């Protein structure tokens, strides 16, 4: 490598490497240079207006401020930051929604249908809330999920389908429990088979008459099934025990069974193991009272409200 001599060209750095390798030293384009200076000026203004440099145990908060109202109704002024900005944003949205939410809170359930505008708000806002919070289990149309979460669009309700009951269910959650063999562990396999036959006969299935007879006696006797499901097998909404006389099944896969034996096996499986699922979480900590009321109306209007 030779660090040779002077350049033969104008506007170079003046060095020549390897005989003829040179470097131009042209000025930067004016537009670029001025943009560069402009960004520096922008930064200086930004430092002045927004939180920027750390100073000691704090930082320069900038001159820009944000006004908002907190949930106690106190007016506050804060230096610019995203959390204050959120407060302001929520304030504005809340102000726009307030007339509607006030109306939701003030209108008793049975009067809501008389107000089409309010109803429209509830159905559209309820749909959004439902998709965010309920659809994971009850599915996006409220059709429920077999073996998991009940259908909300039919008129069969475990805990009651009135506005108040739906509201109560959403607020506090539910937890369905059926003890294995109804709590009577001494039931034999033949007895459980008889019970399954009887339970299936309740919803109109043609079953073996002798077994149905035996199951009937167990249901109202040693099995003590009537304690929860009622003497007529129609369930009790106060404790969420299922109505066994309709053809709606949530836990026993009767609809999926092809033969009578499969149906009996499906019901037997539930009787034998009992149920300790069907947990619906309580939503009172996550949703506001108005949101829950809104959802109660939405669910009620899905088709099956009573």
């Amino acid at each position, binding site marked *: 490598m030779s660090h040779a001599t002077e350049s033969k060209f104008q506007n170079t750095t003046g060095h020549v490497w390897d005989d003829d390798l040179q470097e131009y030293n042209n000025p930067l384009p004016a537009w670029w240079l001025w943009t560069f200076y402009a960004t520096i000026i922008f930064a200086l203004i930004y430092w002045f207006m927004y939180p920027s440099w750390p100073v000691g145990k704090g930082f320069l908060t900038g001159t820009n401020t944000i006004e908002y109202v907190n949930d106690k109704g106190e007016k506050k002024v804060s230096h610019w930051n995203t959390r204050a900005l*959120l407060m302001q944003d929520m304030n504005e949205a809340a102000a726009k929604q307030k007339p509607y939410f006030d109306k939701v809170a003030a209108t008793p359930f049975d009067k809501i249908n008389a107000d089409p505008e309010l109803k429209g708000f509830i159905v559209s806002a309820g749909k959004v809330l439902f998709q965010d919070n309920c659809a994971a*289990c009850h599915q996006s149309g409220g059709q429920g999920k077999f073996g998991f979460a009940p259908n909300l669009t039919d008129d069969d309700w475990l805990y009651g389908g009135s506005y108040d009951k739906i509201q109560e269910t959403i607020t506090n959650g539910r937890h369905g429990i059926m003890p294995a063999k109804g709590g009577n562990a001494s039931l034999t396999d033949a007895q459980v088979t008889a019970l399954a036959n009887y339970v299936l006969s309740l919803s109109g299935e043609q079953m073996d008459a002798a077994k149905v007879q035996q199951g009937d006696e167990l249901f109202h006797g040693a099995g003590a099934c009537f304690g929860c499901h009622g003497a007529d097998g129609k369930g009790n909404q106060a404790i969420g025990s299922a109505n066994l006389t309709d053809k709606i099944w949530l836990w026993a896969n009767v609809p999926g069974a092809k033969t009578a034996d499969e149906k009996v096996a499906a019901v037997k499986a539930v009787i034998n193991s009992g149920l300790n699922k069907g947990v619906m979480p309580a939503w009172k900590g*996550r949703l506001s009272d108005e949101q829950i009321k809104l959802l109660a109306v939405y669910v009620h209007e899905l088709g099956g409200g009573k």
Partner: protein
Amino acid sequence: MFKHDSIEKNVGLMMVLMMLAISVGGLVEIIPLFFINDTIEKVDGVRPYTPLELRGRDIYVREGCFLCHSQMIRPFRDEQLRYGHYSLAAESQYDHPFQWGSKRTGPDLARVGKKYSNEWQVAHLMDPQSMVPESVMPHYGFLEKTPLDYSDVGDRMAALRLTGVPYSSNQAEYDSNVKQFGEDVAKMLDIRNAQKNLVDQAQNGFGGAPGNYDGDASNITEMDALVAYLQVLGTMVDFKKYDNDQFVKYR
């Protein structure tokens, strides 16, 4: 006095100077955070994970959940409405490494705890499409079949203790945890009883939640641990106790 020439001709020197120049940007942003008061919000309730939750968290990291799920609710209205209160720095103070993530193929999980039942979490992990038909999440059914290896959970806690997580390894540290977190929690943070506590939580639950997270009481699986972890996410701080602008002043 340096000449530009001499830097360019000395690769070692140039590398050192380049590294210094590049680090300035990072250092200017990071170092002040150690000195500014109030970077971490003062809230009650945030505690280190119990041994079972910790193993669940390890599985979360192992399976790469963070690649599709963030755990960082930003202070925007749409996120607040969908996911809940924005995440606080204080809430991930015991997370090493934190799971904030930067990609949301799936939803944010920062406050997924207690939103769904254990049963839902298990069914969803086994076959996500059975619960959410439009989901693209892979199946994690094998977690249910894989027994949880918790033989080294004490070592894992001890390692986190080195990074400043207050797991206790002696009586003095235990006593200080009792003062800070209360006795029930302090017992769970004791490295000396880690395995026993893990088994106890898996069978009997902890903090009001029933145990047996995967619905199969016969064994402790990775599913138990992961569900226990998911169910505690974002539930430690009770935001009802604070004004809704309580945390504005920390920014």
